[in-house]
């Protein structure tokens, strides 16, 4: 099951199977798909707790989004 997006256009869609049942259920909620920022809000205002990325190293840390989160201590 895949969705492919180019720019702001969806270029390929297969049927998305979201689990059925009570949306408040913890397990079910944990099967959420990543929500594309372009579909919702700007990256700057995306409310996040932690960053998953391939470039999260100590070298570039001070400039990084993760550092901003750690400092903010939100």
């Amino acid at each position: 099951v895949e969705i492919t997006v180019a720019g702001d256009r969806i270029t390929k869609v297969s049927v998305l199977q979201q689990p059925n049942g009570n949306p408040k259920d913890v397990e079910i909620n944990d099967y959420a798909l990543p929500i594309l920022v372009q579909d919702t809000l700007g990256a700057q205002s995306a409310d996040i707790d932690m960053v998953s990325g391939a470039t999260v190293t100590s070298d570039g840390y001070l400039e990084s989004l993760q550092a901003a989160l750690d400092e903010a201590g939100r």
Partner: protein
Amino acid sequence: MTQTTAGARPGAGTTRHVEHLMGMPISLALRGRHADTIRGREAWDAVVDELREVDRVFSTYRSDSFISRLGRGELGVDACPPEVAEVLALGRAAEEQSGGAFSVTLPAADGRRLDPSGVVKGWATERAAQHLRALEDTDFCLSAGGDVVCHTAEAARGPWRIGIEHPHDPRSVIAVVPVRSGAVATSGTAHRGAHLVDPRTGRAPDGVASVTVVAASLTWADIDATAAYVHGPDAAHWLESRPIRSALVVWADGTITRVAP
């Protein structure tokens, strides 16, 4: 260096810690009963101590680590701490399940060299998180260089929101995934000196900018993200067969594929 900041977001009560180990930031967010207690602080110290010990055993950058000595043939697996055999077994399973796209031995000038770091980061972080899991009524979100494991003890506090870094613009987020309990790992080109190579060819894979995997276990999220990245143009297709919750593939041309097996 440890930096600790107390929560500012109203009602969130999130406490954060960060420490640099193995060339990467280890970041922790805690909320709930032990976010600000001595026990919470001790659990964080235990996480850091454990990761430091893992580095002493597994670092390929330290010539005196067990892994370096094992790689040079100076000692056998039996002479290493039992965790070494555990990690090598995980590496073998990963190699088998990925058709060789993942391996703990990589091509080198003189044959192959032992480098289990592709297993160690996720495995060690997940293992170290047990100290946080022992804190009653406490939620945690722990990141080791962008590999994230989180847990929510109280559903009312809501899921952790994990931002997925834009591979072409690390200062921005390309997607957000809410996770109550589980793991998120991302592999891509800029991983610690761009050392991601196809173990079968020794060449850097192409076609993919980054792969993010959301799964129950950080060990396997990390392994699968790396293996998918190496699969190149087949990354999304290969991930469909994996026991993951979801994945996000950002291709080299900037297009995005979301995978939900």
